[in-house]
């Protein structure tokens, strides 16, 4: 089976500090892949490189045969908007916009008119049990509700891949579980693959398989002898 997204031999340094030192990742259509590792291991940088948010110093990332570093900024941004969805630890919702407007935002940025964009956003909010919060601004929502809005926003473009970086890192265990149930349930229904970065094994357990990042590498398993 061909991978949907492949990252090979990624290296990335910030000044004298290396974040990635030869990391690989393969993601197949419709799967949920966890990326685990201790703090500072490079797992978030790996996600950022794989999603085309950061350009690696070495190595390449290919999505459906297209090498991200060979696309110009406009094409790479368009690919991210249309094919990828994102959920970060702190929601990163626009504080001035309502929940509905936040969810509709990726569609609006992609040129979809307000009414159809907000209709799709409203349908997603309903699926995530947030219809009654459509007009609320992020500051009026709990942390768990904000993350559910972020999940809805990530899903609204019907992406092929959702990149989730510590999506429950700021939540208590019950809210975190709700967010994960909704995120993975919605992804499985829509057929989207998920790259799930987490340091929490209980969150990683929602994945179909996992890789571990250590010191910027994704080492192959060694034998005991």
């Amino acid at each position: 089976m061909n991978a949907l997204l492949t990252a090979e031999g990624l290296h990335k340094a910030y000044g004298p500090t290396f974040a990635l030192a030869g990391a690989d990742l393969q993601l197949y259509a419709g799967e949920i892949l966890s990326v685990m590792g201790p703090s500072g291991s490079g797992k978030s940088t790996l996600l950022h490189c794989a999603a085309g948010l950061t350009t690696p110093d070495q190595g390449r990332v290919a999505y459906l045969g297209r090498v991200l570093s060979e696309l110009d900024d406009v094409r790479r941004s368009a690919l991210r908007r249309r094919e990828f969805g994102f959920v970060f630890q702190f929601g990163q919702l626009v504080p001035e916009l309502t929940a509905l407007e936040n969810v509709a935002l990726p569609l609006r940025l992609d040129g979809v008119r307000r009414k159809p964009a907000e209709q799709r956003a409203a349908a997603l909010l309903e699926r995530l049990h947030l219809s009654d919060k459509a007009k609320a601004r992020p500051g009026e929502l709990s942390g768990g509700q904000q993350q559910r809005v972020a999940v809805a926003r990530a899903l609204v473009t019907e992406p092929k891949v959702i990149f989730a970086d510590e999506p429950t890192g700021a939540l208590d265990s019950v809210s975190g579980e709700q967010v994960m149930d909704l995120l993975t349930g919605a992804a499985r229904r829509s057929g989207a693959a998920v790259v799930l970065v987490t340091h929490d094994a209980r969150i990683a357990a929602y994945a179909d398989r996992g890789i571990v990042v250590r010191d910027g590498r994704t080492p192959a398993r060694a034998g005991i002898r």
Partner: protein
Amino acid sequence: MTIATAFLALLESRPRHGYDLKQAYDQHFGHDRPLHYGQVYTTLAKLLRNGLVTVDGDETSGGPDRKRYTVTEAGVTDVQRWLEEPETPQQYLQSNLYAKVIGALLTGRSAAAVLDAQRDEHLTAMRELTRRKGQGDLADRLICDHALFHLDADLRWLEHTAVHLDELAEQVRG
């Protein structure tokens, strides 16, 4: 917890027939291991013999065994004692794992690989529990959560130990 103790708790909630007891046990306590009828009646016989339950009804028209069982004062005391006594925290898994890590270091094998193999095993078990949780009712979810939190604690220990392996190797190899 023994089957007998679970029966006493179920009978304290209300008197039951043997069949009802089995159903209630399977629902609340026997998620992976439903009782055989043989176990139900040997356990009840033992509880009767020890004066912890009595038979307060015998409806012979309803089937081969329609005896209704009620807990006695002594049975209630047993339930009380069981609930009051904290469980012994189980440390065995860590001890076994620790012994394997030391064994690998002593014999010049890769202790990191031992930890990696165990991490994979734990995560596989956690994925299965998470899948099961998604299909279950609240009782199932809480039982799975209990196992998941324990496995998570083991994994934290694995990560913690992985960080200290070089230092530990120096100590072990003297």
